């Protein structure tokens, strides 16, 4: 069986890839995708912990389901906001939204 540490390393890597995406990408949808990657990394993390250490209780699995649901809700709202902004400004480049500052 694959050791737990490998999976944790994988999820950590995924998390940082998502983090990098969220910070480095200019497109708002790409940023959102980066955040989704981070959430998926969390899920992998939770799943690995549950499967390897705490499979006696269900709470780890339940948590994963909750995270999925919440991520979906969040994405729905986020995409709606982005579309609404696109209609108005014809751009979804996050850097273009800089009228509020100082």
């Amino acid at each position, binding site marked *: 069986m694959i050791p737990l540490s490998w999976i944790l390393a994988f999820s950590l890597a995924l998390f940082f890839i998502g983090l990098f995406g969220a910070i480095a990408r200019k497109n708002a949808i790409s940023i959102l995708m980066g955040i989704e990657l981070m959430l998926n990394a969390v899920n992998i993390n939770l799943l690995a912990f549950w499967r390897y250490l705490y499979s006696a209780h269900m709470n780890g699995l339940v948590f994963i389901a909750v995270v999925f649901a919440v991520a979906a809700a969040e994405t729905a709202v986020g995409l709606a*906001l982005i579309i609404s902004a696109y209609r108005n400004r014809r751009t979804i480049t996050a850097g273009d939204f800089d009228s509020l500052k100082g």
Partner: protein
Amino acid sequence: MPTVNDFLLILPEVVLLIWALLILLIDLWIPDTKKYYTAVLSAAGLVISAGCAFALLGRTGSAFSNMVVLDGFSSVLSILFLLSGLAAVALAYDYLKRNAAQRGEYYTLLLFSIAGMMLMASANDLIMVFLSLELLSIPLYILAGFFRPRLASEEAALKYFLLGAFSSAILLFGIAWIYGSTGHTDFPGIVASIDGGRANYLLLLIGAGLLLVGFGFKIGVFPFHMWVPDTYQGSPSSIGAFMTVATKAAGFAALLRVFLVLFPAEAPIMAGILWGLSAASMIFGNTVAIAQMNMKRLLAYSSIANAGYILMAFVPYGNPVIAQEAVSSALFYLLAYALTSFGAWAVMIALEPAESDGLLLQDFSGLGRKYPWLGAALLISMLSFIGVPLTMGFWGKFYLFKTAVDGSQIPLVLIGLLTSLVSAYYYLRIVMFAYFKPGEPQIQPGRWASVVAVICAAGIFVLSFIPTPVFQFAAQMIMGMK
């Protein structure tokens, strides 16, 4: 299986959620010209929920297999959230009409968000913390962009959303590590695991640090505050006022409970981080506020500084006696801050014309002469922000500083006092404009904002005569905190 008793313990939240869903439906049949009814209905819902919360005051217990607990801490905060919600409804009513944004969703979303905050204050499980955090945030993302297609509002919402989602991913990551360390998400289980020595200390510490970041984002402390000024400025003002008070209080509710219950042993290490966050917030918030001419931005920076003040008392939380005092002081300060902040925002909303991104300080010129009541409310709010005696702000700071002194955080208290001095500069500049500069401000139609302003100012003044009973009430309420 959940029993009726479980639902009874979270009756205020249940009522509020059902009410919000009903309003969502009923609103479909209310014509655009009569959105008044939606506002009144939502206010009624808030009042009924507050009534339930009052009825539960003093009772303790846990429900849904320890997912949520009811204790004095959560009851008091629930009432604070509900009253903030009432203020947000009152502030919104005329303001939305003025801005031609009278859509019923506003009230439904507001009610959802308040329910999230209330659940957050009584969350007893990390899953619950995360769920309630999202329940309070997602409606606020939409509310921040409620003035769509206005550019500023859209921008505020987008920034708030992107950073909010980012921070909740980080918070979630922290929860995952804590789960990995202890095998539990419920607080009693985690505590038992830590006490039993089964927990992995390193993973736990990583989790605690990431949780702190997540909560720090919600309460807006430096350097997790970046979204605060932009979001407050771009959002509808009534939402800005609500977020300044309620989101911050909810963030503190979760922060205080999680750290007091789960990580008392890590207090010596955490104290250094909290110290840095608190000091940096006080210094940064108060300094940058000086350079602001937009009232909303100024209040946003002031809210960052105030988060630093509250955090100050919490730095030495490892000592149980101090922790007790710190939580009481924090509750007291949140009450004082709620009155003060709503007072200031309400004065601004009363004067804010349609299609504006917030008043400039110059727009207050002549307020004291033309509208003595509103001017007095502004004056009292500003004095309370500074912490001048005969205001609640004074007593709030007094108890926070006293707690910090008792916890021997003298350098932090000195920073707090010095930055308060700095803050007097920008608060008094507003007073200076209102009273010493000639001008012709114009109250916008509708008087609800003025009413809120005067009530808050009166509260700041009157309650300052009985600080001890109020503080003792807060102290008594948290006695049963688990």
